[in-house]
């Protein structure tokens, strides 16, 4: 493998129902930073059926080039035809970096593509930068420059590791949604659009989709909320979440919860914060009746301000809270709500 042949930062521009996912723009945003460091460009790989019209939107968020793989076999996400599409783009265009969102699609597509093109893949990255590997020179060992350094949490956020892929190309990473910044949208920006179809011939690996069942989502996505009022088992009952909902309403925030609450059936899974739920970074995070297991903390510790209310003074949530109150949430929360309402009204 001649590593020098591989050039350019490529991102998988995920679309579902012919609507681009936010992660596509986030990856372009990060890709632009990396491309600037490497003196190269960002190319979006757009895969689907009748999706060519989405190229302008990718350009508006900063893509320099869009490769469109458009085929009726690509209407819904299925592992095999999408893997074939992306792997074929990699084989033809030889990018040095390929970024994929760590979504339910990307975490299936990424590993399959990496195995097909025989390169490494680093999962769920939260920091990407260009640097040297090894980080510091080691006598007798070549230090490679301009490497993609991929940083990711592991062990439920207990540890972080920075990983490189020095001897294989492309360097591939899946990137956690909601972490990288999109660029400001520039209406009318244009990208070079190129169509490429490697041919799709169904075989045993093309699974059949019998049915698509969309879940009714009537709540705001907690990943977008500026203020989150999050409750744990300590709230006591599903009815008692009313206290948290009132506080959230008074602050213009949203209610979220811990895994224990979801497991007890008090709240739906899309409100769950933590390692097996969502990673959130609101301006203010209230942790109410949440003990603060490491898996929960992993999903919220990047919040700007963390306020914890818990009656157990030894609860680990106090280790990450900016302001911790040891006390009874049933008394404190309603009183706080009333006072906030009084202030906000003025």
């Amino acid at each position, binding site marked *: 493998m001649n590593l020098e042949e591989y050039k350019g930062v490529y991102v998988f521009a995920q679309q579902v129902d012919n609507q681009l996912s936010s992660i596509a723009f986030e990856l372009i945003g990060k890709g632009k930073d990396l491309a600037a460091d490497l003196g190269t460009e960002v190319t979006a790989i757009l895969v689907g059926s009748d999706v060519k019209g989405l190229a302008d939107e990718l350009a508006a968020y900063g893509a320099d080039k869009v490769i469109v793989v458009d085929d009726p076999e690509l209407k819904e996400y299925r592992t095999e035809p999408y893997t074939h599409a992306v792997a074929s783009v990699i084989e033809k265009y030889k990018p040095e970096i390929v970024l994929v969102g760590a979504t339910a699609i990307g975490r299936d597509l990424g590993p399959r593509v990496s195995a097909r093109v025989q390169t*490494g893949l680093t999962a769920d990255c939260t920091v990407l930068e260009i640097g040297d590997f090894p980080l510091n020179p080691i006598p007798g060992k070549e230090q490679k420059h301009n490497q993609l350094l991929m940083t990711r949490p592991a*062990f439920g956020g207990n540890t972080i590791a920075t990983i490189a892929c020095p001897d294989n190309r492309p360097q591939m990473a899946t990137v956690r949604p909601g972490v990288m910044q999109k660029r400001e949208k520039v209406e009318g920006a244009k990208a070079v659009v190129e169509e490429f179809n490697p041919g799709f011939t169904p075989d045993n690996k093309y699974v059949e989709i019998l049915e698509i069942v969309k879940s009714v989502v009537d709540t705001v996505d907690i990943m977008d909320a500026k203020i989150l009022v999050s409750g744990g088992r300590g709230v006591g009952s599903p009815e008692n979440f009313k206290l948290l909902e009132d506080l959230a309403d008074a602050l213009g925030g949203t209610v979220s919860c811990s895994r224990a609450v979801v497991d007890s059936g008090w709240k739906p899974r899309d409100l769950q914060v933590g390692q097996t739920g969502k990673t959130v970074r609101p301006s203010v995070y209230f942790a109410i009746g949440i003990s603060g297991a490491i898996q929960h903390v992993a999903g919220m510790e990047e919040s700007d301000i963390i306020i914890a209310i818990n009656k157990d003074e030894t609860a680990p949530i106090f280790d990450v809270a900016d*302001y911790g109150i040891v006390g009874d949430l049933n008394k404190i929360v309603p009183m706080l709500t009333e006072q906030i309402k009084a202030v906000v009204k003025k």
Partner: protein
Amino acid sequence: MKIVVCVKQVPDTKGGVKFNPDGTLDRGAMLTIMNPDDKAGLEAALRLKDQYGAEVTVLTMGLPKAEDVLREAMAMGADNGILVTDRVLGGADTWATSTTLAGAIRNLDYDLIITGRQAIDGDTAQVGPQISEHLNIPVISYAQDIKIEGDSVIVERQYEDRYHVVKAKMPCLVTALAELNEPRYMTPGGIFDALEKEITVWGRANLVDVEDSNLGLAGSPTKIAKASDKVRKGTGEKVTLDPEEAVSYLMNKLTEKHVI
């Protein structure tokens, strides 16, 4: 029907995390459990066995003590256990791990392979799909329900805002979510039987169609540049106050920080 279930012995994160000097995990120094998603995958296999009849083989790669998770799986009802262990396999990333497991599976007859979605130590969710690619069979990830219909498997495949009901011809690989089911307990009889049963131990020589250059730390395309315990932001203030005082304390902070 023959089902292969891949399981991993993982450190119980409650016990803390320890590293070797080279930045890889010191797995020997931590308490261990069967990875939760894998256990759900095993339970799914055992339910298919109960319902349709199947031979369930549990496969793991790890240190010799990973035999413990195979014994546990057999005590739950798995028929066979295979441990792949060899010094040359140590330090493998997901690519080298999936190459190794695929090399082991090539020795076996199988209709269905089940892995957990992801392990709680690495959280990558990569090994299942990568095994399927090496074996050139379809994969269905994130399964929240698994059924068999003739020579096909029908799976509810979870996405963020929907699920797809997907049908694939076997052989096929499915990755299981922990919420797929509630794993059964080991039975006393099962534990007794599991101790009697032979565990198959394979090394490098037993792997089929695998090159040395693709194994272990040396065969891993990804390399650790740096690993460390996460630097957490320092503890803030913790106060114990009457409810009234607590509320005025919070009101002050919220005002100070321009939240209200």
